[in-house]
């Protein structure tokens, strides 16, 4: 049934091309809600033991001559990712309620991204997975280049080329796995013993290709630029879901197919991950643009995901999957607050300018949202970020104690830049004069009130991060068994 998330989403996208614009946002909303309902029903109905293995949902021959199948499957990891995709997609539409310019087209590209993400998370055929994976790239370009802000064409091109650059390595890795393993079926390939010599070079090629999309240091620079240039919905989806495609595929394909290659390289992944955590946090500390702060924080948080993978134990890896879920929600919330709630009203994201507006008085709801989001992002207990990061660090303690110390220092830096951004953006000193530094006059009464769709979207995301933070077992029970069956743990 969950396979229908893909069809519903693409169906909605195609419908958007033919119906008049008056219906556009409603179709997008119905489509994404339909997807979310399918996710939730599957989440509730599927018994937990069934989620331990990558269980086939659909399997139809596609190109028999090349051994390609249309093959979808589900386990605890993919269910978690599908669920976060569903939640983000709905809230994304709520935060795009005000898009007027080329509306149909906007939601068309948006739904293509969402559908592609569902596809990647459910694919059990290497070729199919790669089709969905690459399918996401081009809509991102148009979303940013047409609907973005601040240097949008540059950001769009940079992001697209980086994604495709990573895709090139993935392509090589997939071809090698296909040719050497003689199959494209992920379940079959994960039983196949590749020669250690092949694994030693095929693993880094494949994993690095995926990791580019996950924002691994030092190939992360597309992320802040792209996220800052993207429209709010674009940043929410990009940081929230699309970056997870990279880490998910790295886990599902690279690590699971080439376990010995992974053993050889896991140390280096940990080094890159820890460097990314600290480096991105330090850079975020010096940013002036609020979206750049959040963009770098995404890179930093994705570093935790990679660190969790590198631990190569069940706890660390499960924590990484939980972090993918958690960051998907938190990043969406942060970008929604910065891009939609603040920027659409103040038309600036410069922290200096924002600090003179004392927005907490003007927009209490936005301030509340941002406080929750930053608290979750910093890893305050009670929110999902804490649950995920503590699991990763406990897992990492067994393998890389030094890495844990450094990453712990990174958490302090994360707290520092997050608090700085929070203070400057919402709790700056109030100037009684309407005049602010950059020369524009500002009448704060002119800000539109926070709209109902924004409130619904924000509440959805806040509730999710809170629920998972209070009761992480809800997801971990489903993730753990699936992780434990993965080959690289054995």
């Amino acid at each position: 049934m969950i396979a229908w998330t893909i069809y519903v989403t693409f169906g909605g996208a195609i419908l958007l091309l033919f119906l008049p614009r008056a219906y556009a946002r409603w179709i997008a909303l119905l489509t994404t809600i339909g997807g979310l309902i399918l996710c939730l029903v599957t989440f509730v109905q599927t018994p937990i033991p069934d989620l331990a293995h990558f269980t086939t949902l659909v399997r139809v021959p596609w190109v028999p001559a090349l051994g390609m199948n249309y093959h979808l499957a589900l386990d605890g990891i993919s269910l978690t990712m599908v669920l976060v995709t569903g939640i983000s997609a709905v809230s994304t539409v709520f935060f795009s309620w005000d898009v007027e310019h080329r509306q149909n087209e906007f939601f068309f590209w948006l739904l293509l991204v969402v559908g592609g993400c569902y596809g990647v998370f459910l694919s059990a055929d290497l070729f199919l997975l790669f089709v969905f994976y690459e399918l996401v790239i081009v809509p991102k370009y148009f979303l940013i280049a047409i609907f973005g802000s601040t240097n949008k064409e540059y950001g769009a091109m940079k992001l697209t080329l980086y994604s495709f650059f990573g895709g090139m390595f993935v392509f090589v890795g997939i071809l090698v796995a296909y040719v050497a393993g003689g199959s494209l079926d992920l379940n079959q390939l994960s039983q196949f013993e590749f020669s250690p010599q092949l694994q030693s070079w095929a693993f880094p090629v494949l994993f690095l290709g995926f990791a580019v999309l996950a924002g691994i240091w030092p190939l992360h620079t597309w992320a802040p630029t792209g996220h800052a240039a993207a429209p709010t919905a674009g940043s929410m989806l990009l940081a929230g879901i699309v970056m997870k495609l990279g880490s998910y595929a790295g886990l599902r394909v690279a690590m699971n197919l080439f376990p010995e290659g992974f053993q050889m390289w896991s140390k280096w992944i940990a080094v890159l991950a820890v460097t990314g955590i600290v480096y991105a946090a330090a850079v975020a500390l010096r940013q002036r643009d609020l979206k750049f702060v959040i963009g770098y924080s995404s890179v930093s948080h994705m570093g935790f995901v990679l660190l969790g993978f590198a631990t190569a134990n069940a706890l660390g890896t499960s924590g990484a999957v939980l972090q993918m879920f958690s960051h998907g929600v938190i990043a969406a919330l942060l970008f929604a607050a910065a891009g939609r709630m603040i920027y659409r009203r103040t038309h600036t994201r410069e922290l200096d300018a924002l600090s003179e507006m004392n927005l907490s008085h003007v927009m209490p709801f936005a301030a509340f949202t941002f406080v929750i989001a930053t608290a979750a992002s910093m890893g305050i207990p009670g929110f999902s970020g804490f649950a995920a990061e503590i699991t990763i660090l406990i897992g990492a303690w067994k393998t890389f104690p030094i890495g844990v110390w450094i990453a712990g220092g990174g958490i302090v830096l994360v707290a520092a830049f997050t608090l700085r951004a929070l203070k400057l953006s919402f709790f700056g000193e109030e100037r009684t004069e309407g005049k602010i530094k950059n020369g524009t006059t500002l009448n704060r009464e002119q800000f539109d009130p926070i709209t109902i769709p924004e409130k619904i979207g924000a509440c959805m995301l806040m509730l999710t991060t809170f629920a998972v933070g209070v009761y992480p077992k809800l997801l971990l029970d489903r993730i753990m068994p699936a992780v434990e069956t993965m080959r690289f743990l054995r």
Partner: protein
Amino acid sequence: MSYLELLKLASPEAVVVLTALMVLSIGLLSKRAMAAGGFVAGVGVIISIVTILLLPTNETLFGGMLVISPLASLFKIICLVLAFFTIVLTQTEKASRHAGEYLALVLLATVGLMLLVGSEELLMIFIGLELLGLSLYVMAAFDKADLRSAEAGLKYFLFGSTSSAFTLFGISFIYGMTGATGLAAISTKLATTSVQPLLAVGIVMTLVGFAFKIAAAPFHLWAPDAYQGAPVPSAAFIASGSKVASFVVLGKIVFIGFSPAQGSAGWHAMVAGWSPVLAALAALSIVIGNLVALAQSNVRRLLAYSAVAHAGYTLIGFVAGDREGFSAALFYTTIYAVTLVGAFGVVGIVRRETGGDNFSNFSGLASRSPLLAGCMAVFMLSLAGIPPLAGFFGKFYLFSAALHAGANQALLWLVALGLIGSFVSLYYYLLVLKAVFVDASLLAATRPMERVRSDFLQRATVAVLAAAVVFLGVMPNVLTSRILAAIP
């Protein structure tokens, strides 16, 4: 063998020749030659397809001069379909004074394609090559009033005739060494003797002629001017039909005729033969085509350089050197041809409405005509190799075939080069799409916004081709299984 039987087996070609003559006379008699002649030509092409389907599936006449095989029939049909779309495209051009002659030339070139595809004998292949070439030279130069068209024709002619001379010279060497012109006979002869220098010269010279036809670097210099200057239907035909047929013949020559002299292009295991020669051509084409395309600001010139790169990708399939590689190469060249006819269709409409085909003429196309913009996106993204379009599957097929061939992924270097090339290519294809979707229309500033008006026929053609590209990407099995079944 009676003449009647010969005529029966050659009836598809005969039908097209008769149609060409009819179109010529319509051009002399009728005032509205373009519409009437186009209709007759289209009907003739369809009848020819039907006759191909009615003929027996396997027949070899005169030691391979005329061959009817599943492969030949399949690609005759593909060439005829491409010719059909080219004829439809001619209807969009400004009414020419010599419509009858132009359509007749398209049909004669199509006969050339059919002879090329349906022959396994070097002399007959050369005749087909010349019939095709001479028709195309004239077609390229057909727009007499346009200086660029004359330049295109002249360049195409000079390069083409030189390379034909090379090919003929090469064929004479091969005949001298083996005493045969039939491909099968050459193959049996080569299998018994070792490759001598003189024979190697013959093989390389023969390949030069085809490298020219498929616009592989360094024999590509005619392509940019021909693609940019020639009338749009001519350019589309040069880029599609001519290429497909040339690849089929090249494949037949190397896989049937020169099969004992294959050699190897593996990274640490180069062995002399045609395979390393084609590998070198492929590598050079991918590098030169993609890098030079980066600097273009004219869509047709960009398509020309990208055509060079795509010739390089396709050659990778030949370098793989097995049945799978051949099938992948043929699939790729077919979908490439379909894509390019469509892209030229869009270019033709834009050119008619805005008077040019630079990037600036395409800016804001999305707001003027969403349909054309969407189709252009499909064509460009397919060329860049983005799923779920046909170009992506084509590349996957080609590269996996290349890796399958030879132990230890010996052709990985060529595959890696191809992938880097397609990474570079995404940038310039995106530049075209940026003009179409992102940039504001520059025309709005200079003259009142005019919506692209194009009659139903053109829109339908372009949309059908775009749909075909999507369909072949989602269901590639429809074509691959047929090609695989047709290859012995």
